[in-house]
């Protein structure tokens, strides 16, 4: 009797000791792997903040570039990036939410839904530069939008569509089934239920998805290279058919194609810092908001 108990607790067996040691070693390895991710993010943010902080001041944020882009600020780029990403979301959000509603609320599992999902997954996997080619061939050339905010926003909208569909579907999934049943039992139709009950309950989650889509659109470079962005325009945009400057493209141009690559290093760091503050800030807001929501859902 005593012996079996000893065996079950594993005491006195060298094999078990070895197993525990192996486990300890492997768990430390796993810990190191996880730490590398954190360290990588910290190192990147550290270098950008250290070198970019001194470049950022009021003039930098509110002036246009001067002296063939070796001095001055990045106001046109900030405005351009805001126009493009907000435009992209304005296009992608209604379509994305409606697609998610169809997939989650209306569709019955079957071949058709499978094909639609496959399409969305593959759209999510299309390389960003291919989106750029598509935008160039379809919006810029075929629809005669030219290199413009409209063409860029449409391209970025297509790119962020899968992100928004995914997030909205997740948001719809968190709405308890009982809400729908209660509404239907009161005599509401399916659409009334969706519109008055499900959507309001899912709205915070959908907004989180919208913020994530916005940040994705703001950070992309390759899709706008051929469709919206230019090296330099002196004016701020006045219509959707204007070409514009954008933060990510500005970094790329200054870092690789400028006439004075070394002399504008501080501008490059400054622009990169503004971009990641914008993008990571939006993501952080979304993440915090979402974790609060999840906590509320669990309570």
């Amino acid at each position, binding site marked *: 009797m005593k012996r079996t108990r000893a065996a079950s607790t594993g005491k006195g067996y060298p094999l078990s000791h070895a197993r525990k040691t192996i486990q300890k070693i492997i768990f430390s390895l796993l810990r190191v792997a996880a730490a590398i991710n954190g360290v990588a*993010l910290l190192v990147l943010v550290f270098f950008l903040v250290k070198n970019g902080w001194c470049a950022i001041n009021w003039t930098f944020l509110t002036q246009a570039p001067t002296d063939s882009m070796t001095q001055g600020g990045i106001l046109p780029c900030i405005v351009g990036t805001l126009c493009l990403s907000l435009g992209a979301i304005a296009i992608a959000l209604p379509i994305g939410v409606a697609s998610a509603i169809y997939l989650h609320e209306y569709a019955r599992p079957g071949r058709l839904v499978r094909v*639609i999902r496959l399409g969305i997954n593959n759209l999510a996997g*299309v390389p960003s530069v291919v989106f750029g080619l598509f935008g160039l061939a379809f919006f810029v050339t075929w629809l005669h939008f030219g290199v413009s905010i409209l063409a860029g926003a449409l391209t970025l909208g297509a790119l962020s569509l*899968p992100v928004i569909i995914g997030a909205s579907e997740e948001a719809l999934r968190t709405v308890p089934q009982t809400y729908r049943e209660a509404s239907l039992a009161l005599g509401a139709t399916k659409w009334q239920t969706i519109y008055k009950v499900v959507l309001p309950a899912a709205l915070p989650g959908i907004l989180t998805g919208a913020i994530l889509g916005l940040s994705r659109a703001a*950070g992309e470079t390759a899709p706008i290279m051929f469709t919206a962005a230019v090296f330099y325009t002196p004016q701020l945009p006045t219509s959707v058919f204007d070409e514009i400057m954008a933060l990510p493209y500005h970094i*790329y141009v200054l870092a690789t194609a400028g006439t004075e690559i070394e002399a504008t290093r501080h501008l490059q760091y400054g622009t*990169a810092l503004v971009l990641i503050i914008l993008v990571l800030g939006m993501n952080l807001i979304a993440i915090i908001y979402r974790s609060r929501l999840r906590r509320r859902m669990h309570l």
Partner: protein
Amino acid sequence: MAHLLYLLERRSSLYLKKSELIIKVGMLKDRQQRERYIKKLFFGVALVSITILFLIVFFLFIEGVPIFKVVSIKDFLFGRYWYPTSDPPDFGIFPLIVASIAVTAFSSTLAIPLGVMTAIYLAEVASHRLRELVKPIVELLAALPSVVIGFFGMVIVAPFLQNVFGIATGLNLFNASLMLAFMSIPTICSLSEDAIYSVSQEIKEASLALGATHWQTIYRVIIPASLSGITTAIILGMSRAIGETMVVLMVAGGATLIPTSIFDPVRPLPASIAAEMAEAPFRSDHYYALFATGIVLFLFTLAFNMIADHVAHKYKQVGTATL
């Protein structure tokens, strides 16, 4: 008398109800009709994504196929020289394909172990509080704009590599792989974490009850059970690496040569498209060739995504019976 009056009243009220009922039935029919239209509308919108996908394919082929009047498909894919602007031009994208595959392979050897290990750590080992802290970090890593990572690789990592290894240029295959690993780790990590986290509690408990240690349970039970999810994550991570543009455009070096060492500068497919599109004259051979390069790139990622989808569906763990 009173009784009769009461009955009459009741009857008239019944009639009223009946007429109301008729209106109600009409309304119901209206409502049903409307519901049907709304459903159709949503279905139409749901088809937008797939329509965009078709448009992408359509326009890539429209603008890319004319190059095959100039070079054969075989010469295009396996030609070893890419000199689109010389006279006569050479349109062979073999060095670009090799570069893309090399960059993806090297970045995967870094990203797969790191991503999967982090995922296991987060899902199984980390305490709840640590998990709440590390998961957002991984998500922020995923959200970093690629141009910023490319910039970082250019101005920080490249000089560093140049000094440490004493090489001619820090912008090379190795640097690009490193930066790409940066980009694909979050994809691999968060998708595998989902897969590992969703393994049912019962089979973990069963394994622990049989006397297995926590690590043995992870290694023998949890990983096999979530293998399809992990595989999907890895393939999608690789697909992200092969399609990533800005990083390889800025840090890969840009030489259209077949690399012989890990420190050679290379020019993967997306970099070639992004770098040359601006200077290629509209609807010239060069322009067509770049779209055709886009087709090749698209087919690569399409294949990756199809495999991922296939794995995710075919080898999906349902219950414990298939373990």
